[in-house]
């Protein structure tokens, strides 16, 4: 795949936003988007973990799984790598930046089960990205995810003051909003397409 990492980075944020075009990472997106502050904390953590794990998984995939002919083990191995990395990150953050540790709180371990992270690692394999491309795609996807959750949190903050029909309250209205946001993001897709 001949596409510059720079383009890939921006494309991952706008034209193929991991959340708004692939609808990955919905779980925490819906449940943590009630307040802008916590959404931002989670978003930053996701972006960071995404960037690093896509790099790590690229190394594991291309240097271990491919030479040994074990690519079908990628699912299980990627998950193990992500879980271990999040654990390590938690230790590091607690030791060196306790303030950040308290802000992120439960969000850090939650990232382990965020499917956007796993999804990006799988895309990287399917689309045959190089190492640099993978990192750029990971970082872009992370920032895209952060952007999406911040937008939803902002809209939901406004929504708090308004009356929503009972059946649509909570997840219902959030999904509708996400749908409209996704439609709006289609507008970007004319610029560059990486899917």
């Amino acid at each position, binding site marked *: 795949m001949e596409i510059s990492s720079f383009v890939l980075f921006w494309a991952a944020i706008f034209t193929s936003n991991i959340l708004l075009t692939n609808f990955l990472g919905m779980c925490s997106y819906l449940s943590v988007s009630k307040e802008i502050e916590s959404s931002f904390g989670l978003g930053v953590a996701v972006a960071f973990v995404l960037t690093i794990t896509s790099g790590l998984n690229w190394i*594991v995939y291309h240097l*271990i*799984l491919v030479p*040994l002919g*074990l690519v079908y*083990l990628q699912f*299980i*191995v990627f998950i*193990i*790598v992500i879980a*271990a990395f999040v*654990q*390590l990150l938690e*230790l*590091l953050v*607690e*030791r060196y*930046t*306790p*303030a950040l540790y*308290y*802000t992120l709180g439960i969000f850090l371990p939650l990232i382990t089960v965020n499917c956007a992270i796993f999804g990006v690692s799988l895309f990287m394999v399917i689309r045959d990205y190089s190492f640099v491309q993978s990192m750029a795609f990971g970082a872009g996807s992370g920032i895209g995810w952060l952007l999406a959750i911040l937008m939803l949190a902002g809209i939901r903050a406004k929504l708090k003051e308004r009356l929503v029909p009972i059946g649509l309250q909570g997840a219902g209205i959030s999904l509708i909003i996400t749908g409209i946001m996704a439609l709006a993001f289609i507008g970007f897709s004319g610029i560059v397409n990486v899917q």
Partner: protein
Amino acid sequence: MLMQILKDVAVVSGISTLLAVVLIIAQKYLSDYGICKINLNKKRDVSVEGGSSLLNSLAEEQIFLPSACGGRGSCGTCKCKVNSGGGPLLPTEKPFLSKTELADNVRLACQVKVKSDMEINVPESIFNIRRFQAKVHEIIDYTYDIKGITLKLVSPDTIDFQAGQFVQIESQAYAKIKQKVVRAYSISSKPQDNDRIQLIIRLVPEGICTTWIHKYLEEGSDVTFTGPYGDFYIRDTEADIIFVAGGSGKAPMKSMLEDLQVKGTTRKMTYFFGARTAKDLYLTDEMRSFEQVFSDFKYEPVLSKPAPEDKWKGKTGFVMPYFQDAIRDPKNTEAYLCGSPGMINAVKKSLIAMGVPDDKIYYDSFG
């Protein structure tokens, strides 16, 4: 085929083991803070195992900072000055600290983790604080919602405190309540009776600890408490004294007066007790009897809203207007106040207006 399966298992296990080893090494390196030295008031060093909170580390060394929530960062009472080694201020601490406290390096000991050698300042008086096991010796009903509880010490079997200080009781789990809570109560008995303490406790609506004390404690029950805490005690001068108490605020005053009775004093003292109706009055005879003990002491209960059936002939309304008669020389008057923050503020304002120096007004607020 078999080889393939073995190879799969080996690779997955290999990767997992590798990562696990990395994590174990990281954990060992990152979470091991070794033995840390905590320097207290530049006088005393204690060595503790790093990694735990400052509050707990100190408690293990038998140094008890006051804490009402048990280290959950919700009460803000375990403040102490951390001069070095405390790490950055955490968002969990900020709401509890004032601007001057922030500038003064004041932290919440339950939130600060011991990760390196530290230098901290704590009030001298806390070195005296111990954890006591005691048994309920006697329960007296003072009013419909105030009880006097006497605790006989089991271990340690004596306590050294100053009249006016308070202790913190740990309530046990009961009924629907599944966890212990810690609450502060003033000692109402005199320091000379050092094998027991008496507390005067008012039932607080929806209060977890006071409900336990009022409804579940009986003679012989086991009670755990720590103490003594606080810097509310009689200053050893010759100045005139005004005591003002409301509700269960009578406890420290009772302790102070009984203490003065043993030590003897000729100071002029006036004790105002503010209550709503006659049914809120208690220990009136005991307080009155001090008028015979001291050369110049007066007990003045003031009712704000006496009920018609009380047939109250004494003073009514607020306590403040009556201070004027009790003050000979405002500059040579000390005031000791115990009650709700509203009462303390109003009384303090009025005393200052009458010329009593700000730094001679001592109080124990329920805050």
